[in-house]
């Protein structure tokens, strides 16, 4: 799939043209959270199409990771609603939300580093292997087939990221780039409808970033899911994202296609400071 034209949908949002007649995978309405008196995120409303690659950008401290934490209910929203595949995620636990279809990675890698690479993925597959405690204790035959199935699926996912030869290594011992890929593989193992990537290119060199971009496209095309990413690498964001949402001080200051965002004066101001009289630079 190449980039698609962005078209408006009801509720003042845009999604790729191919996703127009389908329920958006993710919708938020007036989402917000307060930490004490501070409105860390406020009036955050977005719509993400079912196969859209979208970007969430903004200066440091804008509240991007907080948005991810709200979407996965790591933080309880103070106000607003989140619709995942048309269903509200209110009062659901983080684990339940994952089962409903959101997976994510972290800014700082959080693998189960003492477990093997393949076991990390298999923990992700946890959801989908139909294996209760009773089954694993009594029905040894069923256990064996489901174990073999999970092993096969885990290997498939690893080979998707060219990591099949590392399957039995300890996750913590992998090189940095491989750990980042493993984290994405682990998240994909939970069979999400949308995967949230928190700064996937952090600490990568240009060739690794190029590979990552390719991988993100392949994830979308292969698994037919939406990808939402937080990223500071503008080259990556402008290159692969179809819709971009810019956050500053917890508020959405702009939404649109890469071209619209690039030329939006509010965005330039947020990143570089005001042109007149403003010498203060952005944190980027």
């Amino acid at each position: 799939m190449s980039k698609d034209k962005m078209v408006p949908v009801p509720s003042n949002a845009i999604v790729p043209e191919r996703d127009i007649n389908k329920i958006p995978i993710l919708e938020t309405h007036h989402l917000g959270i307060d930490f004490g008196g501070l409105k860390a995120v406020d009036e955050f409303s977005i719509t993400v199409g079912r196969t859209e690659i979208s970007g969430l950008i903004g200066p440091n401290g804008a509240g991007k990771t907080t948005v991810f934490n709200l979407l996965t209910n790591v933080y309880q929203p103070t106000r607003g609603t989140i619709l995942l595949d048309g269903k509200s995620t209110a009062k659901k636990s983080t684990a339940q939300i994952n089962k409903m279809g959101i997976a994510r990675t972290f800014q700082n890698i959080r693998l189960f580093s003492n477990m093997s690479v393949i076991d990390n993925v298999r923990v992700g597959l946890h959801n989908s292997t139909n294996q209760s405690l009773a089954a694993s204790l009594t029905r040894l035959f069923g256990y064996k087939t489901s174990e073999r199935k999970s092993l096969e699926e885990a290997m498939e996912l690893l080979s998707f990221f060219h990591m099949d030869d590392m399957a039995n290594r300890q996750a913590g011992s992998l090189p940095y780039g491989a750990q980042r890929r493993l984290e994405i593989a682990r998240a994909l193992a939970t069979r999400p409808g949308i995967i949230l990537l928190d700064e996937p290119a952090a600490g990568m060199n240009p060739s690794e970033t190029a590979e990552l971009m390719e991988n993100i496209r392949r994830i979308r095309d292969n698994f037919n899911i939406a990808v939402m990413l937080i990223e500071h690498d503008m080259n990556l964001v402008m290159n692969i994202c179809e819709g971009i949402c810019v956050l500053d001080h917890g508020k959405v200051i702009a939404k649109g296609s890469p071209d619209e965002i690039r030329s939006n004066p509010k965005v330039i101001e947020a990143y570089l400071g005001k042109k007149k009289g403003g010498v203060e630079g952005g944190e980027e």
Partner: protein
Amino acid sequence: MTFISNLINGISLGSVYAIIALGYTMVYGIAKMLNFAHGDVIMVGAYMAFCAMSYLSLPPIAAILLAMAVCTVLGIVIEALAYKPLRKASSLAVLITAIGVSYLLQNIALLIWGSAPKSFNSVVGFDSISLFDGRLIITSETVVTVIACIVIMLGLTLFTKKTKIGKGMRAVSEDKDAAELMGINVNVTISVTFAIGSALAAIAGVLLCSAYPTLMPTTGSMPGIKAFTAAVFGGIGSIPGAMLGGILLGLIEIFSKAYISTALSDAIVFAVLIVVLLVRPTGILGKKIAEKV
């Protein structure tokens, strides 16, 4: 020959400590809390087996299974009522609650069964093994205890390595939040951990009282503390560590009783713990924690 006899006794006592220590170490690994009421679950398990055999005249195996079932439920209930509401509280609050639960269990046992010691009939049916013309006697309790310990150890290792819930447990013990984002229900995982630990405590209680047949409401507290020591000794959070720590502690205790002083044996056990922690603060098999700076 006395040396070998002591060695065997040490391994036997150590196996009981090891089984108890598994409960401490698993709960610590997953819920990051010290469940000081664990020792008293042993006592409850032993009383249950005692009642089942003495009052209901059940066969030993049925008595053990009943004790395990009761302790499993007890463990889950304790976790749900006392610890779960404190999931986000400071670890000190949880620790004090655990001590409170410990005294609660002891006093309930005191109310039900009284303070007079009960004489526990061994659950092991067969005779002791006599070797070298009776110069070396291995009691049947010893044999059963050591076998039980090995079986439990292997079973638990397989369980955590191979099953879905076991993998979930390892994931939760490494990173609770990330595990939750992988769709693992952390509360269920913690409950399962308490259930397994408490079932093991019941087995330990029965084995302990079969070897040392005096049962009273405080029976569990000293072995509980020593098993906790064993868990720290071996590296808390580590299953093989609990095993190793338990066996070593049993050996140290029996050997100091035999060759140094019976009265001082407990003091020596804890002195060894202090020395080990000074040299290796994370225990023998504990993970080195490299803090990022």
